[in-house]
Structures are given as C-alpha cells and as structure tokens.
C-alpha cells in the first residue's frame, strides 16, 4: 500500500516494533517538530545559508522515511542533494510544504484513528 502519502507497511512496522503508544508519541513529536524544520529551511534559504538549508532538508528526509512518508522523503532528498536555489526561489520549498501538509494530515488521522 503505497498510494497515499504514508506507506502503511512502514508505519505499521514502526508500530509493531516500538508499541502503539510509543508510535503515537513519536508521530506527535514529528507533527510538533516539522513546522520548525520547514521554518529552518525557509530561514536558511532567505539568509543564503547553504549548510543550514541542506541540514534542514536532511532532517525532514530522515523523519519522513521513518514514518513511511515516501514522496516527502524523496522531495526532501532532492533538496538536500541539489544546489540551493538562487534569488530565494521558493518553488522547491512550496512543493515540499504541500507534501508535508499531506503527510501530516494522514499521520494525524492515523494516530486519531
């Protein structure tokens, strides 16, 4: 099942391995932390901080992979590996934000469900 923003095989494996209660706690932590990572990314882009830009994308990629948010992880990986866009071009950031919003919404449903 890889159609939605979250690969449920990955998510369920996480739940099985760490326990339902812990998985909920971990998802909540990610939901809390993710906006900060996006903010780091945007700030780094605006300030021309290539290292910070790459690191924020790296962090998002790593967490996205943990929860099975495959397309989010792939987008973040592209940003991590790519050059920082010139003139503060937000296209990449906006695409990432959309993918993140979708992943967060599904994850929110999963922990509520």
């Amino acid at each position: 099942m890889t159609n939605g923003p979250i690969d449920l095989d990955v998510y369920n494996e996480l739940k099985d391995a760490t326990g339902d209660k812990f998985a909920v706690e971990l998802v909540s932590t990610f939901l809390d932390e993710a906006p900060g990572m996006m903010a780091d990314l945007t700030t780094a882009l605006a300030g021309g901080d290539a290292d910070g830009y790459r690191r924020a994308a790296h962090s998002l990629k790593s967490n996205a992979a943990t929860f099975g948010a495959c397309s989010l992880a792939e987008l973040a990986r592209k940003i991590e590996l790519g050059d920082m866009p010139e003139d503060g071009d937000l296209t990449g950031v906006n695409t990432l934000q959309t993918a993140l919003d979708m992943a967060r919404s599904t994850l929110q449903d999963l922990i509520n469900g």
Partner: protein
Amino acid sequence: MVELSGNLLIVDDNKVNRLLLSRSVEMLGYRALLAENGRVAVNLLATQDVDLLLLDIEMPEMDGFEVLEVLKSNPEFRDIPVIVTSSVEGLDNIVRCIELGADDYLPKPVNKTLLKARLASCLEKKRLRDEQKRLLERFATSEVAQDLQNSGFAIGGKRAHASVLFCDLRGFTGLSEQLDPEATIELLNTFYTLMFEAVTSNDGIVSLMLGDGLMALFGVPQPLENSSQSAVQAGREMFDMIETLNTERAGEGLDDLRIGVGIATGEVVAGYAGTDNRATYTCIGSTVNLAARLEAETKITGSQFLIDQSTFDLLEEVEVARTYKRTQIKGFAEPRDIHAL
C-alpha cells in the same frame, strides 16, 4: 540468554530520531543517554560511563566526523565503539566515517534486527578489549600497557633519560628460614604492596621483581618532569612505609624489617627485550648497573639510602646525611662521589 547491559549514548540533533533510537535500544535492554549534538556528547563522555555511541553525522555545533576525530585522539575514549546511524548521502561519507574509526554503519531508519546484532557484536568486542587491557595492566603496569597500546609491540629499545631505583629487603633469607612458606609469601606480599605503592604513586613503574627486591624506573616509558625527584620521593616513602610496618610488627613481637635503596640517574636504553612470544619491558645501561651497585653499597657503608651525583644534581632542597667522596664502585673504573640521604 545472554544478559544485555550497557550505556549507549545516542547522538542526534533530530528529536524524532533520538526518541526512536532510545526506544529501540531500551527495548533491547540497554540504557540510553541522549545528546542533541556532538559538543554535548563529548561533554557527556567526560562525566558518564559510556559503552557505545550511536552517532549521527549531520549535526549543528559539532558534527559526527568531528566527534569521531575527538574520540580517536583521546586515549580514554579511543576504545569506545561507535556505530554511525545516519541517512547521510554518498558512499564517500560512509567511507570517511569508517576511516575515522567508526566500527559500523547503519542507515536510517535503523532496522531493528540489524541494530540488535551490531550492538551485541560491538559491545562484545569492547568487553574483550577491556579484558585484554585489564590483563595487560595486571602484568605490565598501566604505563607500559599504555605505551603498548599507543606504539604497538616491537622488540627493541630507545635511549632515554631516566632514574633507576633498586630496593632490597635486608636479611630476607635469614628471615624466611624462621618462617613457614605461607608466612614468607605473606611477608613478601606485604613488602611488595608497600613498595609498589611508593613507586606508582610517584609515577614510576616496577620493571623487575627480584625475590626480595625490586627494580623501579622513573622517566620511562613516559617522560617525567624530574625523574630524580620522583625516584628519591619514592625512596623516602619506602622508608616511611617500612617504619610504619615495623611499628605494627613490634606490637606483635616481631623483628624490624630493614631495606636498602640505591638510585642512579642518566641515559638508559629502555624497551622490550625477549622474544616475540615472551618479552618484558626493561631497561639496561650503566645507569642501571650503578643503581644496583649503590643498593649493594648500602650493605657496606651502613647508609641505607644512597644516590649518585646525577640524581643529587637534579634534586631541589635536599639534605644529605653524608657524602662519600671518590668512592670506588665495583664495575666502574673511575671513583665517584655518592650521597647518603
């Protein structure tokens, strides 16, 4: 089942990763310590007992590469196993981790079964290394053990400036004839315990035990600021300890023990002598012969503590009980001044 235990330090700037890894290792029976970047981790290492590091690479303040460099350059931390857990891109980065001393690499998200196997294997290796180190220290003094760990083992010596101390228990043969074997061994053990304490507390090493005496080195394998001062201080403590022991013995109606100490300072050749299979850290040269002769000389002169001119020259504020001018010492052509303390 083997009981799992160990303090694992998880170093990751990402909170989700820290939580997940600590949960994973705790479920395996380990204790987790957390650090949010390399700097915090290095500070924690100074105060906490850590058996293994799970180390992220991409981190602010101090990244994983820098942590590996710190660990490698510090003898105290060098043997702590490190498993790099990262989603860092590029094979060259992983290779760099291994080259910097990381034991293993696990990509994130970390597979639980792999994590379990790698942790057990790394900790077992560490346990064996620790045991080897303990054995080495038991048989070779911690300084020699350190030297072996730093430079590896090779038969051969190098020239160094050092002070050599010989100490001998007087009339031991006579004493032992009056004692049963168990009591003799006990007396020797007491003697050695006290003398070792005097030597090691002054940064020397006991290089030989000779029945009822010993040879100690100051300034090799690790150089000392003033090897003469350290050796003489050790000698003084030996006499103090024997005096205390004699007070106890007097209470039990036993005879006094007496020791003689000789110290010489100068160039020596120190290193590992023997064969590749069995070798000992030792020291040779005329300085060693002179120290041995001075110790023997205490039986002739009646002064219990004799040092040579070179040792004397390096001492600060010393009171000499007596100087024997131009004394002819067996094995040495030129007569020389020796000092009794």
